[in-house]
């Protein structure tokens, strides 16, 4: 369970405050969507949860299963179960995707005091997960994300999510840059991971992603706060009325 209480955040080295006393709870098994106009602080929220260093938390707390994650480094948060699917996944030249996956999985296992994966088990797991997402074997041998299309990069994020088996998944604008077919594959990948022990925070500007990943709750974010909470029908309402009433600049 992810609990965020009265979170106030500013950009480090600047006076600009982005989150202004945000409260949010995502229960295990829940799929929560955050929608909001551009500049409302949605991506900042995802980075702050994951531990990016460009921000300074002035007030509030973030608890994962009761533990304060603000005390942890980004890699410790990952090992504790937080996964962020990036809006723009980074390229890692020269590092084969397989090598990266193995390093990441073993680093998390090590942090949790578990033994390293045996290579045959690792390969089996990767192949099974890749098949489900329609990721070709030769792509796993290529350097991670280098020269991948937008759709391939997003699928690779979901593959990592599946393999790292986090308890809290954050998807930051996962639908951006995807055509409808790619969107469907990615959404199916996410839906397959829905589980009563796992929470999702789906950040999106558009309603269309939520046709494929149907949320339990929808939160509207504006000016660094959650301003409205409802069920999945709230997303449809926003689609019709737009964010005008939530202060999006015209």
């Amino acid at each position, binding site marked *: 369970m992810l609990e965020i209480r009265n979170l106030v955040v500013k950009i*480090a*080295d600047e006076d600009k405050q982005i989150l202004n006393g945000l409260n949010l709870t995502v229960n295990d098994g829940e799929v929560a969507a955050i929608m909001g106009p551009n500049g409302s602080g949605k991506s900042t929220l995802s980075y702050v949860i*994951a*531990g*990016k*260093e*460009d921000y300074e938390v002035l007030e509030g707390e973030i608890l994962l299963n009761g533990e304060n994650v603000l005390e942890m*480094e*980004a*890699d410790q*948060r*990952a*090992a504790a179960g937080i*996964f*962020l699917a*990036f809006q723009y*996944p*980074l*390229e*890692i*030249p*020269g*590092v*084969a995707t397989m*090598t*990266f996956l193995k*390093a*990441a*999985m073993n*680093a*998390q296992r090590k*942090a949790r005091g578990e033994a390293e994966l045996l290579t045959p088990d690792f390969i089996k797991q990767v192949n099974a997960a890749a098949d489900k997402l329609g990721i070709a074997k030769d792509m796993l041998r290529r*350097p991670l994300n280098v020269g991948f299309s937008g759709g391939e990069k997003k699928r690779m994020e979901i593959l*990592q999510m599946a393999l*790292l088996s986090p308890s809290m998944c954050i998807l930051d604008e996962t639908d951006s840059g995807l055509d409808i077919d790619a969107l469907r594959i990615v959404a199916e990948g996410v839906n397959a991971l829905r589980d009563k022990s796992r929470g999702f925070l789906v950040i999106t500007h558009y309603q269309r992603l939520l046709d494929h990943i149907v949320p339990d709750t929808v939160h509207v974010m504006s000016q660094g706060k959650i301003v409205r909470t409802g069920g999945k029908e709230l997303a449809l309402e926003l689609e019709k009325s737009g964010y005008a009433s939530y202060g999006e600049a015209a």
Partner: protein
Amino acid sequence: MAAVQETIDQVKSIDVTEYKYGFVTEVEVDKPAKGLTEDTVRYISARKNEPEWMLEWRLDAFRRWKTMTEPNWSRVNYPPIDYQDLYYYAAPKKGASPKSLDEVDPAILETYKKLGIPLREQEILAGVAPENRVAVDAVFDSVSVVTTFKKELAQAGVIFCSISEAIQEHPELVKKYLASVVPVTDNYFATLNSAVFTDGSFVYIPKGVRCPMELSTYFRINEQNTGQFERTLIIADEGAYVSYLEGCTAPKRDENQLHAAVVELIALDDAEIKYSTVQNWFPGDAEGKGGIYNFVTKRGDCRGKRSKISWTQVETGSAITWKYPSCILRGDGSRGEFYSIAVSNGMQQVDSGTKMLHLGKNTTSKIIAKGIAAGKSDSTYRGMVSAHRKATGARNFTNCDSLLIGDQCGAHTIPYIEAKTATAVFEHEATTSKIGEDQMFYCQQRGLSEEEAVALIVNGFVKEVLQQLPMEFAVEAQKLITISLEGSVG
């Protein structure tokens, strides 16, 4: 605090105490007075019992050197070197020219043991498959203290000994090949080396012989204010093959130490020489105090048809590196390769690269150079590829990549390309990239620690070159690179 800022702060506070080979060995040494005169040259020659022709050769080089000036075209800065304030020869007193290991000063044996270089054959043999054995020539300051597996190599007709011994035992080979690749007056440091060279290795692989094991030389500079003037000569006769590895370390000292080496390789028809270097001289401390000045001339001559010479180097040490292992592609169809990883941190300065001189027809060459700069270091790749007008069908592929860590280091690429035949095909690719804060965050978000993330990215960057090293050295080199970059991120 942002990761990159932390990196910078870490680098600022970096102390190169990670250098684990920085210990000093206490041995009594024999050395002449400081400074360089004809008498110094005579002293060195006399200490080595050299024949008259060798002394004359040295004196001739010395006279020429006196008329030359130090080159200053490279992108490195250092205070003027006072050549009269150095010792040019230092040899352990105890057990000079030992007949067996039992006569070698135990302190020296202990040194090599500490460095992880076993010199007793039975120790080397323990648990090592015959095909993985390595014969070692150990050079301590100015003398070779021991060469292992000589007998077994001799059975295959291979000569592997110190250059001093070769001058005594195989003068005809030395006379024929010495300075045939790097002429005495090639450059200031090569001429200096010709006058005062002390020791190094000599290898001769006869016709059609594939050297039965890896050969290696381990150079150690121990004495204070002493220059090491290594001279190595490797000849692979027709159809022969040899793989040779050189390793280097030195104690941590406040003064800079000079290492001016000359290495010559000669490959005759269908012969192949693979020369690998893992250079880990003391790089100096955080303020740039101390460290080795490494001014080295390395050149291979693909004299025969279809011959091949490949240089592989992993360079993590030295305060200053000035080094361009090159290939003269004289024989038709010959091939030259250069694979390099240069890691610089702290205040290190590197100006290094290669030359591929295509003279024969259908000659090919390949250059893969990877530079990693961290701290306040400065790294320059300088490379020349040229084709003579008769070198029809010459081909070269060059790839130089630089990786920057932090924002106080520099990387430069200076390629010189000259084709005098229209049939030459030269390709040059170069990239410069930086380990970005976002890349680091991405890796950490997947559970990798900062150290692991840097190691992963750096290993991905240098993989292509590491693959060229003999297996056991590749592992060592990988560790070495990680150690050299330790503390370069927060």
